[in-house]
């Protein structure tokens, strides 16, 4: 934006020359309000002289007819709220004609604006009641509103462009995050287990509801523990599977676990003769 702004300023210096409040072009144009456009171009004012090579660049710097109008207004120090329509229209038409003569591709917007300016100018010539100062009545009001709004936005664009912008004027930081060597594993809470169980309840073909009690869980836990003890296939003394020191409850649960394991044919309990030591082994340990 700064670059384009500079480019936009350049022709201003070239064109404005040493003119005072009104550039000679404007004065000259004013004196020939009624003349034909073609004739006006016959005497191209000196301050409008632009090296032919630069002409295209010059017109390229305008973003459209509003931009060109603003340039003419600001260059001539015209009060935007009291635009001399005849003068402005004349100047505008001269520039447009210049573009056309240079075989520059002229966007339709420039011609539309030319028509609008001429319309406003002619409406200005109509007699108006002096007492009414309401700008609603001023044929220029809408054009002025548009020019003011466009100039506002043009300046806003400059201001925005002057703000520091990420990537152009400053950078974000990229500090490397030292990743832990361990892979991040899913966390499971007991609630997740309940949820999984409930999902099973929804989908499993159930017959009846009853509870998994804590007692049953502890039996299951001891079943696993006993199987682990017997892992490897060796015989274990029946009594060694009971940790008497942990209390009656543990003994009872251990015994229930043993019974359950027997029931599920997971262990074999053998006794060579009555009152002989009882041995326990995995039901199918030979391949261990």
């Amino acid at each position: 934006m700064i670059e384009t702004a500079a480019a936009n300023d350049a022709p201003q210096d070239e064109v404005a020359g040493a003119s005072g409040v009104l550039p000679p072009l404007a004065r000259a144009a004013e004196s020939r309000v009624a003349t034909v456009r073609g004739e006006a171009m016959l005497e191209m004012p000196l301050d409008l002289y632009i090296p032919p090579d630069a002409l295209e660049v010059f017109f390229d710097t305008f973003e459209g007819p509003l931009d060109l109008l603003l340039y003419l207004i600001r260059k001539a120090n015209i009060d935007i709220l009291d635009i001399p329509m005849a003068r402005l229209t004349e100047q505008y038409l001269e520039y447009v004609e210049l573009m056309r003569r240079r075989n520059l591709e002229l966007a339709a917007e420039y011609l539309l604006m030319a028509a609008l300016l001429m319309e406003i100018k002619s409406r200005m010539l109509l007699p108006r009641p002096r007492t009414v100062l309401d700008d609603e009545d001023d044929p220029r009001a809408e054009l002025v509103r548009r020019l003011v709004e466009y100039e506002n936005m043009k300046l806003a664009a400059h201001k925005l462009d002057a703000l520091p912008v990420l990537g152009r004027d400053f950078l974000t930081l990229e500090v490397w995050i030292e990743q832990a060597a361990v892979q991040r594993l899913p966390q499971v809470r007991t609630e997740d287990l309940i949820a999984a169980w409930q999902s099973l309840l929804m989908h499993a073909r159930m017959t009846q509801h009853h509870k998994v009690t804590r007692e049953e869980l502890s039996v299951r836990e001891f079943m696993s523990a006993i199987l682990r003890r017997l892992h490897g296939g060796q015989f274990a003394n029946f009594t060694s599977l009971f940790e008497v020191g942990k209390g009656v409850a543990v003994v009872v649960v251990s015994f229930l676990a043993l019974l359950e394991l027997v029931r599920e044919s997971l262990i074999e309990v053998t006794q060579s003769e009555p009152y002989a030591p009882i041995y326990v082994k995995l039901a199918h340990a030979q391949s261990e």
Partner: protein
Amino acid sequence: MLNPNDVKTVLEAALLAAQEPLALADLKRLFEEEIGADTLRRLLDELREGWQGRGVELVNLASGWRFQTRPEFQQYLERLSHDKPPRYSRAVMETLAIIAYRQPVTRGDIENIRGVTVSTNVIKSLEARGWIDTVGFRDVPGRPALYATTKNFLDDLGLRSLQELPPLEQISSTLDLAPQISSSEQSTAAAEDAAPVSAAD
């Protein structure tokens, strides 16, 4: 338990390593224990002050807190990067300004203000940058899209809200006709606003 200095150390590490601005809610999540928003803000302010005079600053943006390099150091840092991001053309910047200051606007609104056709590429490049997006459609024939600026736009310009945009020039205020002009401008704007706008789809 973490003492305030430990909290600051964690905040600093997280902000230095974060890819995006971190909101207070994000920063709270860093800690197992509950840390009040006021405490966090105070510690962040202290952290920011602690970084005064360095090449990097902690800033508070639309979407949260972020460390960024200071613009004064860009002259050094750009010697390291090979591709400098191109400046936007006047057409893009004017379109952006209109969307930023007059949002939500349709392409037609932008064209009315600029007095020229707005090319699709201009809109697209702003969308691609993540600076504008469609927030709805105006309920007129063709149902044109309404554009607005994004949080990302504010972040990238180092702003917390649209209110921090540079104020507009009061071009007409010093002149006689000002009151009438501005009031007519206002009423026109109000009329435009009143035009039925369908909610974002």
